[in-house]
């Protein structure tokens, strides 16, 4: 039993098979249809036992790289991270508990960023610390206005 793990067999093929089964021709399309879902939630929808969140992210990175839309992916990931830790948006009161929620969201955002964009994310994080967004800010997708000013597209 439970010897199944997400990396068994050809997981890339499995991942795309599941995406197609759900009527999408790319992982990006599947994920963008669920802009606030966490990576774990996306993975669970694709396969509760045999798909992991990192695999979904790997796939998203590969697709974004091919379509040259990595910056957009980074913004999408910001939305997912923030929504997971702070579903009501940027905290009104920055107490210790909320400070940790922000820290956790931005910490994961930072580590779940392709190498090419690490520097820009570091700068964006510094900008957020210097000028915090308005309380209640809750980006719901990669096209959020404030998010776009933090991380504008450069590609294409």
């Amino acid at each position, binding site marked *: 039993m439970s010897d199944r793990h997400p990396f068994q067999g050809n997981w890339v093929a499995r991942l795309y098979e599941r995406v197609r089964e759900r009527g999408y021709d790319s992982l990006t399309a599947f994920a963008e249809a669920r802009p606030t879902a966490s990576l774990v939630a996306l993975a669970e929808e694709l396969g509760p036992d045999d798909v992991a969140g990192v695999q979904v992210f790997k796939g998203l990175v590969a697709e974004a790289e091919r379509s040259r839309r990595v910056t957009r992916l980074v913004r999408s990931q910001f939305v997912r991270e923030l929504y997971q830790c702070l579903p009501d948006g940027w905290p009104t009161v920055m107490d210790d508990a909320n400070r940790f929620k922000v820290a956790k969201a931005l910490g994961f955002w*930072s580590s779940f960023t392709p190498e090419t964009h690490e520097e820009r994310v570091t700068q964006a994080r510094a900008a957020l610390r210097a000028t915090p967004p308005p309380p209640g800010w809750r980006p719901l997708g990669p096209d959020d206005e404030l998010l776009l000013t933090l991380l504008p597209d450069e590609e294409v």
Partner: protein
Amino acid sequence: MRAESPGVRWTGLLLALALLSNACAPLMPPPGRGTHLRYTPHEAATPAWAQGPGEASTPEPEGPQRLHRRQGTREAVTAVGPRGEETPWGSALAAHLAFRAALLDVSGSTRGLSGELSRLRKSHWGIAGKAGLFVPHIEYGQDQLRWLDAEFAAATRLAHAATEVEDPDMQRALLRLAGPRLEAALLGSLLLAAWVDVLHLLDVAFKQGYNSLETLFVDMDRWRQMVEPAMTALASREPGQVEAAAENMPALMGYLSGELNRTAQRLESGLRNVEKVKVLAQLMELVTMRSALKFSLPTLRPPAPVTLGVGMVMGTSGVMMGTRIVVSAEWVEMMQRLVREGVLSLPAISAAVRIQAGQMMMAHGELPRGVREALGDGPEVRGMRVTDRAGAGMAERPRHHVMPQEFREWFEKRGFTGDMDINKFCVRLEQAHHQAIHGGGNWKLGRLWPGEWNRMIMKTLRDAEIEAGRMLTRNEVLDIVGEAMKRYGVPMKFVPWRGS
């Protein structure tokens, strides 16, 4: 307890409850505990040991109250509802409550044993006299209390840490870390209870003027040699050793109770000359009142043959042997939850039940199926064990630190020391899974984001600290680690590091 006719049944039940309340001392909560988690009926107003000779113990009148209390608290424990319709939160909470209750049981019994050992140590007319010949054996008992207390404290700390993390999976994982500690303390306190019984018997005999010391001295030495390896194994914290000790414990306790039986008879005939046999008979009652060995001991009255050949069954009041309750239904329920959650292991709990059941069951290898199932045995639990041992010829899956060893110091500064050392937080992974996590194997997709575990986790933690503008607490680190494990599909089941 020949309770076949309905008229006698009530008396039988009362007696059974009264007996239970005394006999299951090592598994039951201490007197006067101020908590509503008191789901077992045991609560001796005064320890039988503390009573003087001749004060007959009559616990029967308390029966109905106990019964009442038991029902009341049963609701509290089951309030979360049966398994299956629970939320992850509810089930983690219930496991946690069961764990706390089990902890209280063990702590109550070790506290009782501690008091009794200090009393014996001062018993200058009894066992502490005789030129101090037997004092080392009392001290041996007191030494065992030290590791029992340490295990207990560690289990308590881990249970406490479990309440502080938010994620129910991480809560369960922390309880599982604490499980072996509780198991060792539970079995160790049973064994120590037996040891204290032996000391107590001698104490009583000496006070009655028994004077042939040589044989007793030799006997004591032999018994200690029997007890010592088991105690050492239980204290070792090595899961394999603890499990082996657990499996052997019913037999060992059976042997000890046989020896105690023979010694009691010898003491009786020794004292018969001084016409003190009646007193001794009463004292035997007192000796065995809270003993783990009670039911396997002779009553020095005609023994009740009723229980002979009667198998154990799971009834509504608990595990029954004839009309006798071996362990209460509440205890069974609590253990079932902990076994199903993978916190305690079935072999250890089975051993405890068999010891409670007395000599006849000690000789048998396994509990009846119904009882095993009530204690949580089932295909999934057995499966858990098999995969734990990486069973049937498969090589044991290697263990990996979830918090990278290279950064041990970083984690130590954030409270990962002692029971929460990063060595306690390892996971077993299949080779392919492990390679993938560390950026190898068939991990080729999306080369712009290597996603290598160690680098990812340290970057997340460090950048979170930059954002927080302070050091993360231990629980915050665990929170982040737990989330990362979910993203990587790593099962939330920790095993200690072994070797390198």
